[in-house]
């Protein structure tokens, strides 16, 4: 053991720093020799940029993949998923099977989305098919619910029209790009309130894909009763579940923070809807996470110095179908309640245990296969290496037997994929 791990961070959060300190790691600055750098997305961009970049040495690990935005930018995520689906269709893969209306049976998990202004005309065509629909406009590069608004009339987005004479939308740079998605106006409501799911997913490598899901996700509830009424389209407290928005609401409660554990959700759904549909729902959630990662795996820079912990946002509609809304590269490490603080502290702890084995100075050449005991609250979501070992033809058979649910799919303790019955 050459010495203690030297760490740097741009993100001054106690849940991080306490975890570093409890391992006896030593804080250094970025100019010194460091082993572990918990970076902001700005920094990772610099490290891997052509002008300001530098090579990382074998004993250096960072917490982002260089082009994570392929997954975490709203427009690129959708682009990659669309591309992935078309590729599967071309190969004649059964996964790309469609129903009689042309909708993908297994890969329809992102709401219909267009880029603006590029796809403006395509969007208008779609909009006119169902003029009473509501759409949600989201700026590609922002977070925490900033800049999001809902529309139900074309006039509300006139300025994104390419033909518009009064287009104030001059800059075509990706910074100002928006995506417009069909708004899910029939979300599953509990207690009359809309909520979304925040799940943490750790990826240690994209090729082969190895990812873990944190068992302790949570639901974020809106403080105000949900209504699809058009008069409340402007009321962000009704529609956006981001805590950054909700905590400014009058009824925000600092004890529970409007959050529910995923196990509460499970208990509620099983009690009121039954076990089969609940298991199916959770199985589908795992499925869409894995598919989204598979979609971007080919284009990801699978740099061996990198790992990443994503914050997945998922909405469940009233037919119990989960929809992938977005993936966050820097999920918030701020704690809104005491429970929250404990959860995030443990999240970082378990993440570090997997990414930096034994808390020792890392060697990025290691095989990234941690022993089961260190997983903590993570469980293996998908391990491509192990899955491939079982033969590709099992894929279709298991996929159509999806209703077996996660428990039936749980393979015995051989360190293989725990949650999935499919590849």
């Amino acid at each position: 053991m050459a010495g203690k791990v030297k760490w740097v961070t741009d993100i001054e959060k106690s849940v991080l720093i306490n975890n570093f300190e409890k391992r006896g790691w030593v804080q250094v600055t970025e100019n010194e020799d460091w082993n572990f750098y918990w970076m902001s997305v700005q920094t990772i961009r610099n490290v891997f940029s052509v002008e300001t970049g530098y090579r990382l040495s074998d004993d250096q690990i960072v917490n982002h993949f260089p082009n994570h935005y392929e997954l975490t930018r709203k427009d690129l995520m959708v682009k990659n998923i669309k591309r992935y689906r078309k590729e599967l269709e071309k190969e004649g893969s059964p996964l790309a099977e469609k129903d009689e209306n042309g909708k993908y049976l297994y890969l329809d998990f992102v709401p219909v989305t267009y880029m603006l202004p590029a796809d403006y005309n395509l969007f208008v065509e779609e909009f006119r098919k169902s003029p009473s629909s509501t759409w949600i406009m989201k700026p590609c590069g922002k977070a925490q619910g900033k800049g999001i608004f809902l529309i139900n009339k074309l006039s509300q987005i006139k300025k994104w029209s390419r033909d518009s004479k009064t287009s104030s939308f001059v800059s075509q740079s990706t910074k100002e790009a928006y995506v417009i998605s069909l708004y899910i106006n029939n979300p599953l409501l509990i207690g009359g309130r809309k909520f979304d799911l925040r799940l943490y997913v750790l990826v240690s490598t994209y090729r082969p894909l190895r990812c873990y899901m944190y068992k302790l996700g949570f639901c974020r509830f809106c403080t105000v009763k949900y209504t699809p009424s058009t008069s409340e389209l402007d009321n962000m407290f009704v529609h956006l579940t981001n805590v950054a928005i909700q905590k400014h609401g009058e009824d925000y409660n600092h004890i529970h923070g409007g959050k529910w554990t995923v196990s509460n959700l499970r208990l509620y759904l099983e009690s009121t809807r039954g076990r089969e549909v609940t298991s199916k729902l959770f199985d589908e959630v795992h499925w869409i996470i894995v598919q989204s990662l598979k979609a971007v795996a080919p284009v990801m820079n699978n740099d061996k110095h990198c790992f990443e912990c994503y914050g997945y946002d998922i909405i469940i509609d009233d037919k119990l179908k989960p929809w992938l809304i977005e993936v966050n590269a820097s999920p918030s490490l701020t704690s809104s309640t005491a429970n929250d603080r404990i959860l995030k502290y443990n999240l970082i702890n378990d993440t570090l245990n997997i990414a930096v084995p034994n808390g020792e100075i890392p060697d990025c050449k290691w095989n990234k296969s941690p022993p089961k005991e260190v997983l903590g609250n993570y469980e293996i979501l998908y391990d491509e290496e192990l899955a491939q070992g079982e033969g590709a033809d099992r894929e279709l058979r298991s996929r159509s037997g999806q209703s077996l649910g996660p428990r039936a799919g749980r393979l015995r303790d051989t360190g293989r994929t725990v949650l999935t019955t499919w590849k």
Partner: protein
Amino acid sequence: MLQEESDLSLIIAQIVQKLKGSSLYGQLERQAWASLQRPEIKLESLKEDIKEFFKISGWEKKLQNAVYSELSVFPLPSHPAAPPEHLKEPLVYMRKAQGSWEKRILKSLNSMCTELSIPLARKRPVGEQKELLNKWNEMGTDEPDLSLFRPVYAPKDFLEVLINLRNPNYENGDSLSFRTHLGLIQVPLKVKDIPELLTFSELFENEHVRIGQKVLAEQDSAAAQQYIRQGSPTALRAELWALILNISSQPEDILYYEQLKTNVIQHDLLVDSLIYKDVKLTASNDDYYFVFEDYLYQVLLCFSRDTSVLDHFAYNSASPPKSYIRGKLGLEEYAVFYPPNGVIPFHGFSMYVAPLCFLYHEPSKLYQIFREMYVRFFFRLHSISSHPSGIVSLCLLFETLLQTYLPQLFYHLREIGAQPLRISFKWMVRAFSGYLATDQLLLLWDRILGYNSLEILAVLAAAVFAFRAVNLMEVTSLAAAEAVLADLSTLKVMPLLQIFLFATVT
């Protein structure tokens, strides 16, 4: 032999009388009339044929369930000359104590009323009615100013009353024997001992969903009750509880609930503010139940106005408080029960409803289930009686178990001024709602339904103390003891009970 027979026929007569007034009777009558059309019903053998028809069509089972339901709350047969008060509570000193406690509560309510110059009840102006109707589904937002309201009483106030209960006919004597009870409760009621309580700990881990589904298919209350003693699978629980409590949402039940809702819209009651305050203080801040805040108002406000709840006072030692129309104090013609259902909520009352929201999301069904749970079980947790499931017996059972099987712990806690009951009382009064994790709480309430008894609450309380005994032995103050027992959210009910009951016996 003769006595038993006449007791039985008395019970039968009473139950028949009760059921004749129920909607089930009307339904059976209609079914019987309608069945005359059927080819298999012959005039010569009318009675037998109709009975057979009832059996095949499932109506006999419904009747069985209804009878079973009545039997669960039916008080034990008593002397024919016993006055009705004996059905409520046979022991005079208990009745007296309950009576004076009620007087205190009512006094407190009335003085709050006078201080704040708010009437106990008032009719809402039309504009206000419209507004309330509009926000019926979100009463949690935009709450009125509740700062001046305080709960009429909290569990610890009630505990003080119980501590001072004495049986005037009981000579305790000065000599301390090993039998002397060193706990807070000083009344000589009979409580079970561990061998009798072992039934609570069926060792059982198998998947029994299939059996549960069969029980549901049969629609048999008694079978469901037996089944649920071993706990219920999550997905079947809502239906099983409804079956055991004999709740089926008939159109008239839904109408009844709507009628109650109309009452809420039209009249404002002082207790409404108490309910609001309680929900805001308890459920709104709870990690599990905050989501259902609005349902709690929809249930509790209606509950206060439900006069059918008054029926349960026949077997409840408590009596509904009486109030008089303004200016007519003492004149019986102007007496009304206040609130209309006779139940004054106390601090934490809404927590009886909250866990049910995990099972039922349709307001009228949720309402019916809660009402039935209240008139079968929960009322016993806040009235003074000698009933084995009454809070007094539960307290005594708890203290006795602790003193008998964990004497070292018991004496130590007494020494440092931390009488165990002072800590466990609030758990039992709330049936552990808000203290255990929801899934564990539901497993506990499964057993309450299954055994038709609340004694398990006392056993669980003792088991919790046993579980944390090591830490508790090291504390030196009541506050420290409270801290050790502050967080029960990680406890698993069944293993805890099993460890306590089996390890303690051996």
